[in-house]
């Protein structure tokens, strides 16, 4: 019974770690004591996302009728809370006429996908795979 309770506690901690790592880029690594890595992820990924918005990229909606738009939305959400804050504040409407529109989309999508990799890395470190 004790082992099961400990495993449950570990699993709960792991889930919390992954949620924190998703919500704030680099938070998982900071939590695990890898400060320099966590700070690099926090600064680089947040900068990529902000640049994507500044370049008039679009935060894609979850539109199931358009699979590619839906996939882009999934990638965008990967960046975590910044996505929700930016959406709530009305950023990320996108301007398809802007020269930098596609660059902005690329920055936003790649920032989200890289944060997903960072979350997986934090999870691997936590379970001792790395």
């Amino acid at each position, binding site marked *: 019974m004790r082992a099961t309770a400990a495993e449950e506690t570990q699993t709960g901690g792991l889930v919390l770690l992954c949620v924190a790592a998703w919500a704030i880029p680099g938070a998982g690594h900071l939590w695990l004591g890898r400060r320099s*890595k966590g700070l690099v*992820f926090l600064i680089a990924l947040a900068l*990529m996302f902000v640049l994507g918005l500044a*370049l008039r990229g679009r935060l894609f909606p979850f539109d199931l009728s358009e699979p590619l738009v839906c996939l882009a939305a999934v990638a965008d959400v990967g960046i975590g809370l910044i996505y929700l804050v930016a959406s709530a504040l009305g950023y990320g409407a996108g301007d398809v006429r802007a020269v*930098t529109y596609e*660059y902005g989309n690329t920055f936003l999508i*790649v920032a989200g996908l890289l944060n997903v990799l960072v979350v997986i*890395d934090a999870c691997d470190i936590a379970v001792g795979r790395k």
Partner: protein
Amino acid sequence: MRSHLVLLVIFAFLVSLVFAVLTKDDLREQMRFGGMLFAGFVVTALVLGWLMYPFPR
């Protein structure tokens, strides 16, 4: 900021930085791997750009 080259370099730098820090633990290895990635991104983009140059728009 409308320069495609500047945007390409910024993108390549940030992605290389994250990948290098993500995959390597030693600072020297991170610098080496990140530099190679960055150079690979920029050189590949320039080569592909010039290869497409003869084609009509």
